[in-house]
């Protein structure tokens, strides 16, 4: 979920290249919540800076749902730029977009 289409396309290719099934995309916080209800994904890759709701709010909402998906926050900024909000929003973790690879995502998901 990201408002930049180029990033969404590249991320999709990156994830599909390692065998993950990308079931949907969203370009805003509200659309992200709607699509999650419709598609029920296992993992949500969520940009922090969205045009309507911020990523922390979306992550908190998603995490509070029954059968909540695993949320991974992404941003062009670093986690230290957001302080304690990253750890307190219910997301599994944070990956800087510059560090986003199949390996970094797999490492985070495997704990």
């Amino acid at each position, binding site marked *: 979920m990201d408002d930049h289409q180029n990033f969404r396309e590249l991320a999709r290719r990156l994830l599909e290249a390692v065998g993950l099934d990308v079931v949907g995309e969203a370009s805003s916080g509200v659309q992200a919540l709607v699509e999650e209800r419709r598609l029920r994904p296992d993992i949500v890759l969520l940009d922090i800076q969205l045009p309507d709701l911020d990523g922390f709010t979306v992550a908190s909402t998603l995490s509070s749902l029954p059968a909540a998906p695993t949320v991974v926050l992404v941003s062009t900024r670093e986690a230290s730029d957001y*302080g304690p909000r990253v750890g307190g929003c219910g997301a599994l973790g944070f990956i800087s977009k510059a560090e986003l690879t199949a390996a970094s995502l797999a490492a985070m998901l495997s704990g």
Partner: protein
Amino acid sequence: MTSVQRRVVQAVVLLVLALVGLVELEHFWLSTIDRPPILVLDDLIPGYAFALAGLIAWSQRPWNRVGVLMVGIGLGLLLGAGPVPVPSPLGEQQNVLDNTWTFFQVVFGSLWGVALFHLLLVFPEGRFVSRLDRQMVGSLYVLVPMSGLALGVLALVPLQSIDPNLGSASDRFNAVGLSLLATFFYYFGCWVIGLGRVIRRWVRAAPARRRAMSPVIWSLVPIVVAWLGPFATNGPIWGVWPRLVMATATPLLLVSLPVGFLVALLRSEHEMSSVGDLVVKLSDGMLPEQLQPALAKTLHDPSLEVLYWLPTLGRYADLNGETQSLPAPNSSRAATVLGDPGGPVAALVYDSSLRNEARLVDTAAAAVRLALENARLQVQLRAQLDDVRQSRARLVDAADSERRRVERDLHDGAQQQLVTLLLSLQLAKAAAVRCSDSKAVQLLEGSIESLRQALDELRSLARGIHPTILAEAGLMPAIRSLADRCPIPIEVTGDLDRIEPKLEMALYFVAAEAITNAVKHSKGQRICVDVRRGSGCATVDISDDGIGGANPSRGTGLVGLADRVAAVGGRLDVLSSHPHGTTLHAEVPCG
């Protein structure tokens, strides 16, 4: 009305008073044959008292209708003096219609009471302050002469001479009598409501207004005694003497009201002497701060304000330099602008009841003119300083907004593009790996690494322009984030909850600049940052164990920081001595 016209009218009034006096003199001598003289003077004494007091008031305060109304009341009372025919229910033939004066007396002789009601409601300004007052007085000016006319026709016109078929005189009397009774109750009701409103205004008035109204209010007491006295003394248990005393005192008691108005008028003349005290105080030296209270005391108006005209800024300001406006016309406040040919110097703003004391206000204002000129220079300086402070705060706000915008643009634009490029290169590298093209893989890895470094530098630049964490999480996490990235160990102590963003920004940039300076110049091994909330302020102390020698007068870094802190009303202290390191103490006001 010009002053010449006014004097002509006043001369005519005096002439009328003299003529009425001559006419009444004859009546007086005839009446005193069987009555005490004081009883005959019942209407004459208050009539003359009102007329003469009104003429004085009119001369002294020509712009105020109070004087004219008092003259009108006086003439009305004199008009009502003398014998008034008693209406006869029998409708007997009466020849008094030939006496036009008597008819005139009956129709208009009671108007003085309406004029008195009018006067009480418009005192002290001389104009109505509410629509209800205006409506009550207007309706009485119409109804009372109409009732007088009905009474006059009933009592004086031989009914049969008009139309024999009009019914009996007794029927006519009953019909008119009922309407007269209704008018009486309306008249009485208006007086009760009007007096209630006047007393309520007096109780609730500002001190200056209450002081102006007081003589008139207190003079109402003898009037009430004069009106209620006959009811009280007419009982069978009292005997003759109380009634005689009451009857004798009544005309004298009725004089109290015009005397009340005159006292209110003459008191301001007496109070001119208080201006003398003001001049003596001024000659002993008076600070600008003391001018306003001294003037307020002299003019008996604690609400008085002195506003100063600031020609360079084109506005009025109070002593603190804050912008103020003159009161609107017809509001409860009035203003006297003091100036010279070059323009206004200052303005006195006071309760509108002081309009009647224009001479007193002008004299007091003239006495303080020079002191006001001096005070104005100080106020102008304060106002300019205030403007500079506000302008500096606006500049800092504008700069901060611009920083936020640039950081956001970098994030949404260049950083996003570079991240996308990085992901593309990683996909290309994955493809090259699949094709076992080691040369391409090597080239792509180099490009990816360079791109990562560029992104890091760009992020660092954006963070320096405007730290996202400051807005997201506040000052403490932002300073801890600074500490995490610093090559020298930093100990962060203290705690501070969220405060105004512009205050957080000022303290953050002090800390960031101090840490950068310590890393670059101090040669120290350790930095301590302490953040606290003090009494009405928030503080940040940054100290290092370096060589010291920081000089705020050299270079623009520390001066710029001091300006930024001052722009939000705070201060920055720098303590730096060789070889004891440097300490910066920043303090900003916050609730």
